[in-house]
């Protein structure tokens, strides 16, 4: 990783927001009116990060962890309060137009296309902004729309599209000018599984074909697990883990949570069944009168589930990936912070 010059670099970056606090009650309001109290909120602290060209990095963290703030600092939307953010070797807050032409940003929660016109008209505007030549523009729109399966929706007003289609349009818009770095802030939030999958596939393909660097944030582990090579975990404004996803998956991510709901006539859970769990390396993490949750390694998941059917009268069963909170807890437990450095 270190042989490549980085395309993007953060050196002890911090971001502090100041928010005003207001007292409760009429008196508090009056007091606040005379002298405003400002409370500083540390959104990012001491972030060190370097990304090489062609990497596809997943930035994960709970809501409020600072993912969006980091993306905004990196794209020069807001200045960092301390430290230095560099993109293409320049201060991210003072990017030149030529630099800006090399990057792109997609925000899951905020549309960047025009709401009341068809997506294709927004793309024409982007074409002028990014000075893409006409032939290439037509080709890219057609090609990307086919890949994302929205060719027949290009002429429809954006507000009449479904959330998934809209997000796909945002992504087409972001990739029109062939950017070198693309930031995607929670692009799959609220989408159905099929759209999520299409978008992930698209990102992987573009990354492979054009060596586009992708920075993807999410609070959903599935996004990262299926798209990225490298994982950065953000927790309360700090980097908790930064490293190779493959290694991490082997240790933690490969765990599954299995939740079973039992019929009324099923045998209940009892302590003598512990032995049955050991065979699969599973642990019981939650027990309710008629619902049990186990954790088990991904590779033992299938035989374990079959065995559950032998043991109980199962009414319903759900398998989930390790939720993020568990993963973070696990990382804390094993003391494996910031692997990369």
């Amino acid at each position, binding site marked *: 990783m270190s042989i490549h010059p980085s395309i993007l670099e953060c050196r002890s970056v911090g971001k502090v927001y100041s928010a005003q606090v*207001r007292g409760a009650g*009429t008196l508090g*309001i009056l007091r*606040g*009116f005379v002298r*405003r109290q400002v409370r500083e909120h540390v959104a990012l602290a001491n972030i060190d990060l370097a990304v090489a060209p062609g990497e596809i990095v997943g930035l994960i963290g709970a809501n409020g962890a600072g993912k969006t703030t980091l993306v905004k600092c990196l794209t020069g939307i807001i200045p960092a309060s301390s430290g230095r953010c560099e993109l293409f070797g320049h201060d991210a807050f003072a990017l030149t137009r030529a630099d800006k032409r090399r990057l792109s940003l997609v925000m899951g929660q905020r549309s960047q296309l025009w709401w009341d016109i068809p997506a294709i008209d927004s793309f024409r505007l982007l074409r002028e902004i990014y000075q893409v030549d006409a032939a290439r523009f037509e080709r890219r729109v057609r090609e990307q729309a086919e890949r994302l399966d929205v060719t027949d929706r290009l002429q429809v007003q954006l507000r009449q599209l479904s959330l998934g289609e809209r997000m796909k349009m945002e992504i087409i818009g972001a990739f029109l000018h062939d950017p070198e770095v693309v930031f995607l802030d929670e692009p799959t939030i609220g989408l159905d599984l099929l759209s999520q999958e299409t978008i992930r596939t698209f990102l992987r393909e573009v990354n492979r074909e054009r060596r586009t660097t992708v920075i993807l944030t999410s609070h959903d582990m599935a996004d990262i697990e299926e798209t990225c090579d490298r994982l950065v975990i953000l927790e309360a404004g700090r980097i908790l883990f930064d490293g190779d996803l493959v290694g991490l998956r082997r240790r933690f991510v490969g765990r599954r949570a299995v939740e079973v709901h039992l019929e009324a006539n099923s045998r209940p859970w009892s302590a003598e069944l512990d032995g049955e769990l050991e065979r699969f390396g599973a642990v019981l993490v939650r027990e309710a009168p008629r619902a049990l949750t186990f954790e088990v390694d991904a590779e033992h998941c299938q035989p374990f589930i079959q065995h559950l059917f032998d043991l109980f009268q199962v009414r319903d069963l759900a398998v989930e990936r390790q939720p993020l909170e568990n993963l973070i807890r696990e990382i804390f437990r094993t003391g494996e912070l910031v692997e990369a450095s």
Partner: protein
Amino acid sequence: MSRARALAASLPEELHLLPYVAAYEWRKATAFRAGFVLNALLRGVPRPVVMTLVYLAMFRSTGAAEIRGYTFVDLVHFLVWTAAIQKCIPDWRSLDLAEQIFDGYVTKYLVMPVSYFTLLWGRFLQFTAVQLLAAAAFWCAGALVLHSWWPQPVSAVALAQAATLLALGTGCYLLTYFILNCLAFWLDVVWSLLNMFMFVAAFMSGMLVPVALMPRAVRGVLEVTFPYWTVNAPVELLLGRLGPADFRFGLAVLATSFVALHGLAFVTWRRGLRRYAGVGT
């Protein structure tokens, strides 16, 4: 009939809620301090300052001592009173109902155990209380700095009469905004309608130029409209140019307008909500 009785029964409760609503609105209004000070205290001041200079230039050029019975000092006094009164007239931007209708937030009023009108008048009370303070502060500051140049009400009676007209008149303004906002149930052009009303009303009320300077026929027409009785007439009362008979006539015009507008507001709101719920957004 029974609806009227139910309404009367809920009235004490609604009145009880009024101060709370007003306090809540105050909270919202003071959330941004710089904007609050600028808007509440300085709103309506720049124009009279410029107009004073315009009048000065006018008197310089004619050399006459008075225009339509107004000396330069009278016109300045007119401007000062207009500025003070203008502060008390609600700004249409303070009622964001149309946006709430567009964005579909109105459903929340459908489930609230309080009539929207209570919220409306709560907001009105808060606004009027703050703006009266602002107007009074403005007047006192002026009196301190410019003592003899600064206008005094001709009598306590005139002051009371002017205040009465103003209170009723501002209510009429608010109701008009409300009705125009309610049109958002049907149209998406509310913003421009409100602006249009403001432009026309500003002229009709004598806020831009005293009605006395306008052609006499115009004055005759304006005398049956509420903007005139909300701004121009109270100012003339304070200057001692109108008497008790004028006051009684104005009171009648305003009271009629108020009742009519209130009825219209009620009907529009009811119809609008029904249409809204019917569409099922």
